[in-house]
């Protein structure tokens, strides 16, 4: 939980947002859950992985249909 709150505090700092400890604690769960859910669903879009870290959307692959994103 502490790690999650540290992550949120860093994100808030990047946004120049001074959050209270309570605000950080309240936001941590829902924000990280959304980030993970979007990431998991986006992976199902058929990324082609060049290596472990670079993901290429379907539209950029050979044979990818125009307009596919």
């Amino acid at each position, binding site marked *: 939980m502490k790690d999650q709150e540290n992550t949120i505090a860093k994100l808030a700092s990047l946004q120049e*947002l001074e959050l209270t400890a309570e605000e950080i604690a*309240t936001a941590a769960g829902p924000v990280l859950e*959304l980030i993970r*859910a*979007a990431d998991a*669903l*986006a992976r199902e879009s058929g990324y082609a992985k060049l290596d472990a870290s670079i993901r290429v959307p379907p539209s950029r692959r050979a044979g990818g249909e125009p307009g*596919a994103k």
Partner: protein
Amino acid sequence: MTIAVTASTIAERHQNPCLLTIDRLGDAIRRGRLSIRGVIESSLSCIATADKTINAFLFVDPEGAREAAERLEKELTRGHDRGPLHGVPVAVKDLFATRGQPTSAGSRLLAKHVTDHDALVVRRLREAGAIIVGKTQMNEFAFGVTGLNSHFAPVRNPRATDRIVGGSSSGSAAAVAAGMCVGALGTDTGGSIRIPAALTGIVGFKPTFDVVSRDGVLPLSDSLDHVGPLTRTVVDTRILFECIAGKSMRSPRPAASLSGLRLGILEDHCTKLDEDVADAWNRFLETMRSVGVELSSLEGDATHEAMVASTVIMFSEAAEVHRDWVRTRRDEYDPATRARLIQGSLLPATTFVQAQRIRERLRRRLAAYFESVDVIACPTQAAVACQPSKLNPQVIQHMLRNTRLAPLLGNPAISLPLPSRALPVGLQLIAKAQADEDLLTVAAAIERTIGAQSSVKEDTR
């Protein structure tokens, strides 16, 4: 459960003309059986009486409404008829700019904000002869679906005053359902027109994205916000829609036959229905089969994807709109709004991009559905209106489940009442983008077939 039907009952006893359909009201006015001034006095009187309980309005404008009634009455006498909305009382959500009146978006942050212009849709209503009787309650900045706002007294459901109305266009739905006005404007970003329409037993229509101007409407989420009407019947909805969309207002269309209509059932939107909703939904399906509608199942899980993509996009875009105030005036927000804006502020750009990718994938899937069906159907809400004390994050998620898809993809969607055992149940119909007129034609045919116009009073004068 208090099924008081307070306002509607009061209105019916007093033969409230606001319970007539727009064409019947117009007919009564043009035949001299009702005066526009009389109609407006009935509307104001109903607000004065019923709104003590319902709390639908944040601002009522008796003076402006009476002045407009006087002027429009004279115009009609001189033969200047502005069309079906001439002299019709309507309300607008407090998110729409109205000249010389407060526009607070239901927030303390804008408590003293008076707008010096009309939103384009408000201007179109006035030009068509509609009379704006007041501004209605809402979730703060339209950011929520409960219809509750800690800055103001709770909006109560006219169909059961111990129940919520749903939101965010709670006041607009309650005002129409209670017979305080004939129609109202709302906005829908994730369900904010269709949810309260379903929970109060009226019609709520979210047109195709950007078919209705958002000029002069305070933003929540720029790529998801839609403007649309709430009325008691689909025919009335079409009249208001054509007006605010700037389309030529045509006479009612000939009745469409439902035989041969290809209706796709979005199966993942039809699970975990409460007993009343399941009962109304199953009877609807039986009726559709009996009149020759071709039903087909649409499989696939769209709900989770729509919920995630819509939440990320909505929260991020709202956080951008409120960026300055989240830093400097955070304590003045309703706690629920504040929490969502903070969450939106913290979502990284990569997550936003992923949400857009999920959105495109859903768009392709929906387009594929429309290759084999004309219209998609599901219950608008999986449950009937609950008591405020029963609200929790799970219940709120459940309320949003069936309404997120259409605004995310920009498709037109309408909620209309299904005959139900006690509390209102809504049927949602979704069509292809830009097929607004076709959707309204199908919805009107379904409305006639299922005979759900229970709250429409026949003109017996």
